[in-house]
């Protein structure tokens, strides 16, 4: 009897050691790219984001070190319930370690909770709401690329300082629009401006003429577009039709992506000022990456800043895993490692991840070129100014993130 107990103990000890060894050598990773694959945000994220994640895996060189990295993608259709259902299935059934992209702030916030509950990793690049690293921050979440605070403090602030002191908002009626309007309103007020009115329009509205007429009647100097994707392109196009810019009012495209400018066409979009954190034609490295990216896209599109953010985020995640020596399948642990390492990649340059999960990197003020200035099918932007990351994003002193109170 004694002997059998001894052998049992020995067996257990061996099993524990074996498990420990397996833990150290676990080099399997599963990445889930969750996005709007076919709706109004599909071009700025969507299949391009999945491609960006794939390129990040290839460029990481981890396969040569014995890592096995799989990528799956899902379509959240801009519906929070569908997004969370996919996220749950990915964690429970498919054993996904990390979810990336997730445009649409409504879906992004919902998925944020699921990732925290399942202790996965969440690198959001597509969503705008600054709440992801503020009131609703999570130890499992890193927010790359941009947020509403940054948009408000770059484009918004520049316009108010240039004399645009009265604003009328056209706001997409969901989490993102509300956050962007809130953050921009704070900037307007802080700089002595005033919001004279606004309308909340449903997501994915084909016709903005009613709303534009209200904006026109408000006589506000600036019409702030707190919407995105197809909504923004339709607004800008129809504003031109109704002679809004000719009438002396200025459009503030608070959030504009490369693919939006492509869709509007330079003829109508020229002169718009806006902010992005990545543009394909910044330097040799961004051009080289973008060329590779574009060659793999079905429609030859250049990467948007969201897709670039997915690439950079996945690269940094894989660097952290490599530094850990294996995949611990513990989201909090991996994100802590990611925060402890400075970020550096070809697309966003040097930066850091703050304790609240916010990635800090430069933001750039751009102006859309005139058709005569454009030399190629994707040659759209002129660089107007650079805002250093620490001025563009929420200062930690203003953040309400619970992670900062330790």
């Amino acid at each position: 009897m004694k002997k059998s107990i001894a052998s049992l103990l020995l067996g257990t000890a061996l099993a524990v050691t074996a498990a420990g060894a397996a833990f150290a050598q676990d080099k399997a990773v599963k990445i889930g790219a969750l996005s709007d694959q076919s709706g109004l945000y599909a071009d700025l994220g969507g299949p391009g984001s999945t491609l960006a994640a794939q390129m990040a895996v290839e460029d990481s060189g981890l396969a040569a070190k014995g890592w096995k990295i799989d990528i799956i993608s899902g379509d959240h259709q801009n519906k929070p319930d569908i997004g969370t259902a996919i996220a749950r299935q990915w964690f429970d059934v498919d054993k996904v370690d990390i979810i990336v992209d997730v445009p649409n702030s409504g879906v992004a916030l919902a998925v944020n909770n699921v990732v925290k509950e399942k202790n996965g990793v969440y690198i959001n690049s597509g969503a705008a709401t600054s709440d992801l690293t503020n009131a609703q921050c999570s130890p499992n979440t890193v927010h790359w690329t941009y947020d509403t605070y940054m948009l408000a403090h770059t484009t918004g602030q520049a316009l108010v300082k240039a004399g645009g002191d009265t604003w009328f908002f056209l706001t997409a009626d969901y989490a993102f629009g509300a956050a962007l309007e809130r953050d921009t309103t704070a900037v307007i007020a802080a700089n002595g401006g005033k919001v004279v009115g606004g309308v909340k329009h449903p997501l994915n509205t084909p016709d903005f003429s009613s709303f534009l007429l209200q904006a026109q009647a408000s006589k506000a100097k600036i019409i702030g577009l707190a919407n995105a994707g197809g909504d923004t392109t339709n607004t800008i196009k129809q504003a031109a039709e109704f002679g809004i810019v000719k009438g002396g009012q200025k459009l503030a495209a608070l959030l504009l992506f490369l693919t939006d400018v492509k869709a509007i066409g330079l003829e109508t979009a020229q002169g718009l000022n806006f902010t992005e954190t990545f543009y394909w034609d910044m330097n040799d490295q961004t051009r080289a990456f973008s060329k590779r990216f574009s060659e793999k896209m079905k429609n030859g599109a250049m990467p948007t800043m969201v897709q670039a953010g997915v690439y950079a985020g996945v690269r940094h995640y894989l660097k952290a895993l490599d530094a850990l020596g294996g995949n611990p399948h513990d989201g909090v642990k991996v994100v802590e490692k990611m925060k402890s390492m400075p970020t550096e990649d070809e697309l966003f340059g040097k930066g850091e991840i703050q304790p609240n999960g916010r990635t800090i990197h430069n933001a750039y003020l751009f102006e859309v070129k005139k058709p005569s200035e454009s030399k190629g099918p994707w040659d759209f932007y002129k660089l107007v100014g650079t805002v250093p990351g620490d001025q563009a994003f929420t200062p930690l002193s203003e953040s309400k993130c619970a992670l900062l109170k330790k």
Partner: protein
Amino acid sequence: MQALYAQLLVGLINGSFYALLSLGLAVIFGMLNIINFAHGALYMMGAFVAYFLLNLGGISYWWALLLAPIIVGIFGMILERTMLQWLTGLDHLYGLLLTFGIALIVQGVFQNYFGSSGLPYSIPDQLKGGVNLGFMFLPIYRGWVVIFSLVVCIATWFLIEKTRLGAYLRAATENPTLVRAFGINVPRMITLTYGLGVGLAALAGVLSAPINQVRPLMGADLIIVVFAVVVIGGMGSIMGSIITGFALGVIEGLTKYFYPEASNTVVFVLMVLVLLVKPTGLTGRAA
């Protein structure tokens, strides 16, 4: 008050798209008994054909107004010949499912090649600019859309309700065997009618190309509303769908002014109300 006039006019503009699209649907349903869910995809194809004509062939908007409906109409007739005709006499559900599937395939193919944000199409030079009406700045192009679609709607109504050809058509729906006995080629007439309905959708697509983006999903976003319009107007009623199209555009415009959050649900609320009171729709006759 001035703002209200402006909203009424804007509503009328949107109404003209609803009217053109629901007219096509009504023609197809009335004559072929098919619930054409592919209508939105065909509308989208109209806009894309206009885009291709301009960018690949250098063919202007004006020619596109004529050519795009013909090209897409022919595509529609091929669909009818190869697929839809086999559904004659079967339950509506089969036609609905088939056309819905066609819509998904067509949209998927376009999305695969052109993405989802769409392509730019400029307003033709002759219709650029606008006039100040005192209460609003009316873009000339929008005014053109209202007048042109009104003319097309009335012409279509006249063709079906007041001409000999229209009489044949209506008779063929009522009793195909008898009409055939008079030596009229009923299947060909049905094919042409489907082509006409599809052409109307494509025409609406060309009209909307300069206003909205030329996007693969432009029809999918609109088609549900248009179906509500057809249901409210009464399935298969030509005049009913024209009037309801314009009226709902106006009601939607007013909602955008008074309570914008509800602007994309108001049509469905109305649909429920109408169905509760008059299940056949406002102008529909009992089956």
